[in-house]
């Protein structure tokens, strides 16, 4: 089945999933996947993350879709919020795209699905006021479906 997808990438994703199941992190669970695209170009995984207690997202759950291409883990996965609930957050656009440096310039192959989920939970937790980014309307109208085609400016370290 994984004929076209490189074995090394598939194997690493598999090992991550085994690790995810072996030691679960509270608020981060595997929802579905791995699903391979019909053309063997990428593998999709959907993670469910819960807003942490004591934060503005307490009690909310969000679906994060990870899309790993054949260069994973040398290239970052494409990570977007999907489904009906996209968190209202100054770095999350209403189409689900996330402005987070580790998903772009600061990606490292030592990062994993789990550590990315934790970073996003932490990014949500440090938010004090629920609001969309100021350029949300414009960005959502003009952006590509793939957030990696966007050249992000990482300017805000506080939230």
């Amino acid at each position: 089945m994984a004929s076209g997808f490189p074995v090394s990438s598939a194997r690493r994703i598999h090992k991550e999933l085994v690790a995810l199941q072996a030691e679960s992190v509270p608020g981060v669970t595997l929802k579905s996947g791995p699903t391979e695209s019909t053309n063997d170009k990428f593998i999709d995984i959907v993670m469910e993350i819960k807003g942490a207690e004591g934060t503005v997202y307490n009690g909310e759950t969000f679906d994060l879709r990870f899309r790993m291409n054949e260069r994973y883990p040398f290239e970052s996965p494409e990570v977007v919020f999907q489904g009906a609930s996209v968190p209202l957050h100054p770095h999350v656009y209403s189409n689900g795209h996330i402005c987070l440096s580790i998903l772009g310039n600061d990606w490292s192959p030592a990062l994993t699905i789990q550590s990315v989920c934790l970073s996003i939970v932490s990014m949500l937790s440090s938010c004090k006021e629920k609001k969309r980014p100021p350029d949300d309307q414009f960005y959502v109208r003009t952006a590509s479906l793939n957030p990696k085609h966007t050249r992000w400016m990482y300017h805000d370290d506080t939230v």
Partner: protein
Amino acid sequence: MDDTPSTSRMDDVNMDQDDPDVHAPSTSSSAFGQAETGKGEKDGEKPKENLFECNICLDSPNDPVVSLCGHLFCWPCLHGWLEMRPEGHQTCPVCKAAISREKAIPLFGRHSKGEDPRNKAVPPRPQAQRTEQTRHANFNHNPDFTPFGFGGGNNGFHMTVGFGAFPFTFFAQTFGLLEAAPGHAQQGLVSKIFLWVAIILIFALIFIDL
């Protein structure tokens, strides 16, 4: 790998890792069964965490190398990462310290042949693509810079040198003459003043025309 005595330095390798992998048999995902059979001999034999795992493929390292910051990788994995980064911007995947091919130390166990893994041909890897960001910055700079230099910069430069310096030297010379002969007749002085007015007018005309 398992016979190797564990040194304190090597223990650190895994401390930074968020997700120590557990060698448990596959429970899900038929899609990965095939990939698993490749190197899955250790499954079941060692259920606890393996301290010696490559930080990139999360597997027992093949041709192990260690960075100066103490992080363990397979040489093919680290090489793949170094290829992705432009020279001089190569960082350790775990701690972001500067690394390079020369600063990767090969590890030789008891039964290893002692061949430097860095000299081995590595499997074909994805070509570097992430260099484009620094290049883009340069491309953006150059077109901006060149027209600016030709446009205002050069013209302004010629004007000030060509016409600015010349009249000043001329003035200085005539002033020098004036001072050299202070006791001359009033008529001479009046004619000198007229000459001055004429000169100033001529220069004013030249400057206004330009």
